[in-house]
């Protein structure tokens, strides 16, 4: 147990664990000390010199990211001397920094801009030409490097050396000839490469996917959970609805990780980070009777027709994409249905020591916790082939990935009555009798339970498309229809 000690910050008496970094202890007390190079998950090299504070008894200012709290310490982070020190440290960061703001994606969330407005606001004294370095370097499939903007804080090199241990970036050179470069012969293509964009305080490392799409000050940010695997990393969904003419009208602009010490720390993997393409493409919004004739119907009409069939039994092919609320409603509505939702064969992938889990769906645990058991898709295939399946209900599962497109189409024709439900149309969108539009996770509220049993809440970031409803709402509707309750 760490000892609690008393110390003073800007005249206020505070308490902290002995040895806690002053910069963190200050943050605990609501005092933000400017900094670039320090990152709680990447260490404290103390090379940006922004976080200097005055400590009574010390001959010169100390960097608060490398100073631990001691009993009776008297710290000042807002004296005139420190304000001058902060402004001058910032000035020296900006001396060779290119005035790229009008074309730089970081604009609006840039450490240099933010601190300049907070503690700078001085007149530049630079009369020289700025140093020219590499620009628009494709560091990897997801990351663009601009060496002129780089402030050499070393966060990115520490990330690839200590977190992913892949060493694709390095600092080469000495003094003002130093550059952050891609290590010769390599490309920044590890499974977590996008994280360097998050940790880069400036626009030196930017996201190629997000490049020039939309200005960050138009983005709304919603807490959510990544549905890419059973880790369920905490994320923030950044959406643009204010400027629909940007980003080709796509609403989801990007995903960013959200700090969660219990689940994913500060990071997410690239698959999760860039796996949001299906949220704004090929979306379903109409409740459709597809067969025998394609026509728009109301939810009630569809529910009635479906309930008539499903009353006699149904095989349900779904996945761990369903939320805890969805599973509960599904169980409630179809207690006797044969369920097929295992991640095999198509929803499994690489697992690593960092974040990625083998099951590429967020919530198989939710089903497990409710005692639901899944058959194998091999068995479902056999049963369909043998004509044993009358009614088939496919929810948020792309059967072309399970069986291959042609085989899936052939098998679907073997069932008597098929209902499709999901946010995207996909290749099999017309191979059913009724097609029900479901909301994507960003358009609803719910909970996922990750592989370790951690329940996480995801919030609604966008309005549903067309008539789409959350899966659980649709299950409830069908349940009521099957009980004969008027819709």
């Amino acid at each position, binding site marked *: 147990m760490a000892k609690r000690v008393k110390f003073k910050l800007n005249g206020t008496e505070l308490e902290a664990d002995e040895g806690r970094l002053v910069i963190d202890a200050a943050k605990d007390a609501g005092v933000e000390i400017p900094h670039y190079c320090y990152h709680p998950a990447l260490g404290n*090299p*103390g*090379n*940006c*010199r922004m976080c*200097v504070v005055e400590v009574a008894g010390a001959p*010169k*200012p100390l*960097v608060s990211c*490398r100073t631990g709290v001691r009993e009776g310490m008297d710290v000042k982070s807002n004296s005139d001397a420190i304000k*001058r*020190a902060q402004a*001058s*440290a910032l*000035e*020296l*960061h900006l*001396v*060779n920094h290119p005035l790229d703001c009008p074309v730089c994606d970081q604009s609006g969330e840039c450490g240099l801009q933010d601190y300049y407005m907070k503690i700078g606001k001085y007149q530049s*004294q*630079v*009369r*020289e030409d700025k*140093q020219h370095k590499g620009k628009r370097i494709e560091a990897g499939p997801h990351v663009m490097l601009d060496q002129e903007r780089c*402030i*050499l804080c070393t966060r990115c090199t520490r990330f690839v050396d200590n977190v992913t241990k892949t060493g694709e970036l390095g*600092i080469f*050179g*000495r*003094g*003002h*000839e*130093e550059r952050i470069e891609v290590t010769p012969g390599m490309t920044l293509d590890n499974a977590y490469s996008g994280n360097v964009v998050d940790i880069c305080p400036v626009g030196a490392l930017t996201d190629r996917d997000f490049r020039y799409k939309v200005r960050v000050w138009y983005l709304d940010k919603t807490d959510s959970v990544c549905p890419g695997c059973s880790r369920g990393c905490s994320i923030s969904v950044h959406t643009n609805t204010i400027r629909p003419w940007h980003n080709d009208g796509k609403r989801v602009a990007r995903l960013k990780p959200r700090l969660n010490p219990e689940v994913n720390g500060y990071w997410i993997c690239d698959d999760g980070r860039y796996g949001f393409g299906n949220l704004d493409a090929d979306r379903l919004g109409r409740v459709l009777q597809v067969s025998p004739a394609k026509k728009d119907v109301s939810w009630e009409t569809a529910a009635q027709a479906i309930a008539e069939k499903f009353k006699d039994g149904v095989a349900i092919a779904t996945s761990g994409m369903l939320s805890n609320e969805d599973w509960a409603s599904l169980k409630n509505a179809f207690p006797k249905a044969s369920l097929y939702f295992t991640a095999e064969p198509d929803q499994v992938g690489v697992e690593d020591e960092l974040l990625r889990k083998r099951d590429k769906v967020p919530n198989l645990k939710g089903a497990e916790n409710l005692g639901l058991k899944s058959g194998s898709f091999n068995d479902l295939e056999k049963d369909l082939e043998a004509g044993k399946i009358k009614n088939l209900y496919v929810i948020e599962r792309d059967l072309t990935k399970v069986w291959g497109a042609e085989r899936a189409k052939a098998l679907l024709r073997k069932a008597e009555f098929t209902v499709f439900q999901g946010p995207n149309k996909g290749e099999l969108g017309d191979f059913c009798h009724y097609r029900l539009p479901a909301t994507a996770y960003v358009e609803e509220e719910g909970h996922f339970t990750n592989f370790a049993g951690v329940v996480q809440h995801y919030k609604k970031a966008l309005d549903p498309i067309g008539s789409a409803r959350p899966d659980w709402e649709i299950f409830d509707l069908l349940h009521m229809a099957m009980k004969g309750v008027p819709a």
Partner: protein
Amino acid sequence: MTKILTKHFDEPKLHELETYKRLDGYKGLAKALTMTPADVTAEVLKSNLRGLGGAGFPTGAKWGTVPPPDKVPGPRYVVVNADESEPGCYKDRVLLTRAPHQLIEGLLIASHAIGAKESFIFVRGEYQNQYDIVEKALKEADDAGLTKTCSIKLMRGAGAYISGLDTALLETMEGKKAWPRQPPPFPTVAGLMAKPTVVNNVETLSMLPFILREGGEAFAKIGSPKNGGTVVFSVSGHVEKEGIYEVPMGSKLRDVLELAGGVRKGHKLKAVIPGGTSMPPLLEKDLDLTLDFDAIRAAGTFLGAGGMIVLDETADAVEVAHNIERFLTHESCGQCTPCREGSFWSEEILERILDGKGTAEDMPNLTRMGENITGKVICALGDTVGVIARTWQQKFPEDFKKRIPHGQAS
């Protein structure tokens, strides 16, 4: 005048073991080995020996911060910093060339004092001739069984002035870039490969044989209060007789200048840099200052490693400042932003002034920037960037003003 290190420099074969032994060589080590490590350290503390590589820290006090072997068991090391790279300093080169055994003896004494069984001599890469000489002397010492208490290994550097800073030296020795560390912990607690390590300069260690032979008190008597023994100045620049000159601590600046034959004939003294280009210059009026760490500090500059550069009236302060800032920019490790950017910016401003394109804001800007950098960087090189930006224009404003139309000091 008392000489300690250069006492036998008229003996051409001083670098050979036989000659060195004949002239009281290795008697200090023999004495030390009859004493406990703590007693050796106490003797060195008594001697008031100060670190002669630049910092002037009392050597005995530094050794005293090494945790004792029963508290921290395991290897501990002594590293000789022979990475002399401060412009103006070459006394270590001469000491390595002429008296390698004096250094080896001193190193073995230090190793005994802190309990090191392995020690290293880190020679700057550009001293290949000196490396060969020391290697030969080391072989003589090994063959004579003198290194049985502590083995000594040689290692070469690969350039870079910053690797002469103690923590950066350790980084280089560990096969990394010479980026200075930020103590705590200090090297004596966690140094080479995180083991307790004492890093000492060539000249400092070379003083130890005398201290152990004649006693710490005798050493302290030669010199001034708190600054024991002698100090070797590397004199260069606009003097008649460039060369190394060993004088007691507390000698007058004027005396050293005289030993070097004074300012070259027909010229007038403009400035003297006492300790290597990182240190602010002294003027004609300062010639009666006493040369020891404390007195020179009080006069606003530093004794450093005794690299005394003499400048006459043909030297131009702007050119000098530019030369030094260019050196600092080139040698900055780049780790921290103020030094990396500030050194380059200072060099550019001074270059612009040299090109005749200076503006009225340049001098106040250099001063302001200098004040902002010194004290807010990771190591002394960064501090120096700020010092140089300020002092040469403070001391010689006319040199700057005449190049800058409407220029003014701040």
